[in-house]
């Protein structure tokens, strides 16, 4: 097994609903989706966003899109116009999630580390 940063396996977009941020995480290839489902759990995402997100994290699966959707509650200093944050809408939480490191088998690690990064 080897560690790989999510940015090698997936892209993402994030937005807001009140004080909740959502992060959509999308596998670059269909075969990466199962890895995301196994490794990028709600609990791991909650731990990853420690100090940023102060509430619960929910995860939804969209196998048809090879994507996961995360809801990060209490993450935007009240959200909307209340928030004092630069990123009051959580628009950059997409790539904050892509910083996460996950465990993949050596073959997949070689594949994503050798190919030119998609980003």
């Amino acid at each position, binding site marked *: 097994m080897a560690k790989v940063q999510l940015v090698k396996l997936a*892209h*993402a*977009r*994030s*937005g*807001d*609903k*009140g*004080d909740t941020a*959502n992060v*959509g995480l*999308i596998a*670059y290839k269909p075969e990466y989706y199962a890895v995301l489902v196994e490794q990028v759990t709600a609990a791991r995402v909650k731990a*990853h*966003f*420690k*100090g*940023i997100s102060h509430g619960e994290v929910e995860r*939804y*699966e*969209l*196998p*048809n*899109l*090879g*994507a996961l*959707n995360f*809801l990060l509650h209490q993450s935007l*200093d*009240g959200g*909307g*116009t*209340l928030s*004092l*944050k*630069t*990123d009051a809408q959580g628009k*950059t939480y*997409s*790539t*904050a999630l892509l*910083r996460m490191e996950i465990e993949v088998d050596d073959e997949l690690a070689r594949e994503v580390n050798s190919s030119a990064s*998609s*980003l």
Partner: protein
Amino acid sequence: MKTIRIANGQGFWGDSLEAPIEQVRRGPIDYLTLDYLAEITMSIMQKQRARDSRQGYARDFVAMIEQILPDLVDRNIKVVANAGGVNPQACRDAVIDVARHAGFGGRLRIGIVAGDDIMQRLDDFISRGVELKNLDTGEPLAAIRPLVQSANVYFGGRPVAECLDQGGQIVICGRVTDTGLSLGPMIHEYQWPVNDWDLLAAGTIAGHTIECGAQCTGGNCLVDWETIPNLADIGYPIIEAHDDGTFVITKHQGTGGRITVASIKEQLLYEMGDPHAYITPDCVADFTTIQLEQVGADRVRFSGIKGRPATDSFKVSISYSAGWKAVGSLVYAWPDAYRKAQAADRVLRERLERLGLTFDSVLTELVGVDACHGPLSGEPSPDIAEVTMRIGVRSQDKKAVERFTREIAPLVLNGPPTVTGFAGGRPKVEEIIAYWPALIPKSEVEPEISVIEA
């Protein structure tokens, strides 16, 4: 198979002024839809109407219509927009003035969808036990009733379709959902039944895909972002909708940007909650049923979409006054830029404390270090060239916020060294207009529709 082409020309009030005009002029379309409303917009418009009963709508819309009116009439292009804000009647009157002035009087019909503004009915609702509880906190609206600035029900695509059925060429809506603006034309063209949930879900998802304008055509797109061609001339999205609920998302030929399955997936997940249950006034759409296929350059086909019955409530968007805030910043340069910015923050906070000012919240961010990704950003380089110290406060006490705004500039002379970036003057004190989401039984409100000749 019949196809209608529904274009989006505005993702929010403040989006590109050129986009709607380009959508009309650079290729064939049947409908132009424009989304002008966000939660905060309604309260701004409510204030404008309080000052002048002929205001309270998106004035940009009227100026834009003036420019494209000849194209609309010549090519029978229809326009659907929630530009009516809190005063769709006044918006219609302004459009009629423009049409008559340009010699198009008697040549087109204009519809409005109103009835969404329930500001005057709130006390009646509350007295009858319609509590309008906050969807996030469960608190009844009575708790903040005197602070309410605006209250509007979200209607869906159905009243839009009724306006089109009655011959409306320009349909001006109040608080109609972003997705309803695009779904309405499909219901009208294909006479989709009120209970064909799969078709309504398909139209809703088509609307969701284009409601943020160029965010599905390569704008704000992370995948291969540096190779996306010609963002300066980015094409806005167009739905090619069929009567069986399948559709293709595309853009005019020759425009910049890129539409791929990947760019579409990013937009589908934007502001997504539970993807199994995307609730609108028209239906509950299931995003886990969408099948995507690249069917050509800048063409993505959607199929397989399933929906479920609509709920018995409308969502209500209520805005209310929630205090005051201000945000100021200063820029610190090398060497020790990070430590200087941190020191400035400490000094400023100590002064605020000595002044006896109390705030509900004080937030400092060091822009260039960790404002976006917080603790995930890691330690900055000791050689970092510059750091912006950005500090904001929030309070119910306007005077405290005003006093805060006078404490930033002095730091340039009496704080840590090598500092600049104060040329903008004192930060602005802003009133906070917060958002109160609630539900209301559908039996309590009816859309009010009218269509008249210009």
